C-alpha cells in the first residue's frame, strides 16, 4: 500500500482538519462558517478556498441564509464526504499497519 491510495483532496492538513471537524457532528447537523473558522483557526479567505475545493467534490455542502441584514453561511459534511473520510481513514490504517 502506498500514499497514492490516500484521497489527495483530503490528504492536506487544512482540509483534513475541516473534514474531521465536520465529521464530529451527527449526520444532518450543520456548522456555521464562523464557528468552523474559530475551531480550525484559519483566515476566512483561506477557509473559503478549501471549502470550495471540498464542495466541488461534493464532500461538503454549504447554505447561505439571510436573517434580516445578517447572512449566515452553514456547512455540513455530505454522505459522499463522510464515505470519503471513512475510506481515507481505512487507507491510513492500512498504511500504518504495514509500517
Amino acid at each position, binding site marked *: 500500500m502506498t500514499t497514492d491510495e490516500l484521497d*489527495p483532496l483530503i490528504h492536506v492538513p487544512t482540509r483534513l482538519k475541516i473534514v474531521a471537524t465536520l465529521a*464530529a457532528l451527527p449526520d444532518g447537523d450543520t456548522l456555521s462558517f464562523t464557528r468552523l473558522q474559530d475551531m480550525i483557526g484559519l483566515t476566512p479567505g483561506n477557509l473559503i478556498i478549501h471549502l470550495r475545493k471540498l464542495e466541488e467534490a461534493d464532500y461538503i455542502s454549504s447554505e447561505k441564509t439571510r436573517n434580516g441584514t445578517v447572512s449566515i453561511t452553514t456547512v455540513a459534511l455530505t454522505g459522499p464526504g463522510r464515505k470519503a473520510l471513512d475510506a481515507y481513514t481505512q487507507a491510513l490504517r492500512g498504511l500504518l499497519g504495514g509500517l
Partner: protein
Amino acid sequence: MNHTPDTAAAGNGGSFDPQQAAALLDQTTQQARRKLAPSPPWLLATRAIGVLAALGAIWLSVRGQHPYKGPTAADAPILIAFIVLNFAATVGVRERALAGVRGRTRLRPAEITIMVAAFAAVPVLMWALAANGVSFAWYPTTVLIVPGLAWAAVSARAGWRRCGMGLAVAAIGVAGAFAGPTGSWAVAGVGLCAVLLGKAAAVAWRQRRDVAAT
C-alpha cells in the same frame, strides 16, 4: 472533481506523511468532539456529585424520622441551590458548545414543549396517586418517572442508544417505589449519581477513541 495534490499551494508545507495525517486526524476529531459536546464528561460528573450530595444530605436528615415527616425546612435551600446551579451550568455549557450548530443536536420547540409538559405533569401525577392512596405518591423517585420517559422519547430521534439515560432515570423512579419514603431519597441520590457517572464515562470514551488508531 479536483483531485490535484495541492499541499504546497495551500500553504501547508511540503510533505505530509501518513503518521502525521493519522495524528492530525485523531487530534482534530477528539478536539471537535470535546468542543461540540453539549454534555461534556466533566459537567456530567459534577452533576453526579452534586445530586449525590444534595439528595444524600436530605436522606441523612430524614433517616432518623419515626414516623417519616419528609424533608425539613433546612433541606429546601440545598435542593433549590442544586437545581438552580445545575440548570444554569447546563444551559451555559450547552449554548457555548452548540454555538453555530444547527440540526438534530439542538432540541426542537416541540421537544422542549414535551419536556416542559412532562415536568408540569409530575405534581399532577403525584397528587392523583396520593388521592388514590398510593404509598409512593410523594416519594422523590416518583418525580423521575415521567420526565425520564419523556427524555427517552425525545432522545429516540437520535437513535435507540440515546434512550438509555432517560430509561435509566425512569427505572430509578420505579425502583424507589419499593424503597420506602426514607430509602427513596438514597435510591434517587445513588441511582442518579451512578447513571450520570456512567454517561460521563461513556462520553469520555467516545471522545477519546482514536479514529485512525495511531
